[in-house]
């Protein structure tokens, strides 16, 4: 519930920053579907955490090391909103100036996502596809009835 509220709030911030497309995604995916799936997971599992039988020292070390490396990687990035950052010198003017005659689509976000950065979007769709396949494999997808099905009339039909 809190994550849903957080996502809706983040969507409002994105609208305020004039990033309507991102806000749209955040509101529909973050506030809508994710919350729904989180509630579904809670309904499937239990609400309480199992008490671990060991101290997870190694995972903690891995997580801290990865986090430290990521933070180290951000140190030499240009400051937020810096007009002299490489992205504002090179690709952004290129896209904004050449997009009308190259693509001719009014929404520059769509043009960048679908055409200039088509490979990235293909990768994102592949990620979603993989997630769907993973859930199908793990949760059965309702294709096969569980052997000796506990509820006869539970889910009939060809599914």
């Amino acid at each position, binding site marked *: 519930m809190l994550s849903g509220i957080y996502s809706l709030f983040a969507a409002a911030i994105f609208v305020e920053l004039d990033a309507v497309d991102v806000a749209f995604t955040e509101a529909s995916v973050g506030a809508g*579907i994710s919350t729904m799936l989180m509630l579904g997971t809670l309904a499937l599992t239990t609400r309480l955490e199992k008490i671990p039988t060991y101290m997870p020292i190694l995972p903690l070390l891995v997580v801290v090391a990865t986090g430290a490396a990521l933070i180290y990687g951000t140190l030499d990035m240009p400051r937020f909103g810096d007009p002299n950052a490489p992205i504002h010198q090179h690709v952004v003017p290129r896209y904004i100036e050449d997009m009308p005659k190259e693509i001719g689509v009014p929404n520059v976000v769509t043009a960048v996502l679908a055409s200039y950065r088509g490979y990235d979007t*293909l990768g*994102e769709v592949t990620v979603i596809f993989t997630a*769907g396949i993973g859930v199908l494999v793990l*949760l059965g997808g309702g294709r096969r009835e569980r052997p000796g099905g506990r509820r006869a009339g539970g889910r009939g039909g060809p599914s």
Partner: protein
Amino acid sequence: MRHHHVLHVIAKLLLPFVLLFALYVQFHGDFGPGGGFQAGVIFAAGFILYTIVFGLENARKVAPMPAVRVLVAAGLLLYAGTGVAGVLLGGHYLNYSVLAGTPVAGQHLGIMVIEFGVGVTVAAVMITIFFCFAGREK
């Protein structure tokens, strides 16, 4: 949920608009905010609403799992296939300029087709995941 007449009526009133809005976001993504991802999620949200109100069994009749599973792959294949079509027509992979008479028209067509592919895959995956979660008994 058998006796909730108000919920049934309101959901039935709401559903056409949810799905229509999803299609609007899908095919208007080149002019306004939106695109395949958002449209797919909104479309799936319509199905989720239907599932919650009318039950999983009815929802599976509307969206049979075999068909949804095919759509999961079909959207991605449409996307990747558009790239291959560009290669076959003599361009680069995922460069849509060669798909139609003029480069601009080709780009427009390519963007529409791949956004549709994105929308189909996203909607099908979300419906699949929700059906899997909802169909699983504790």
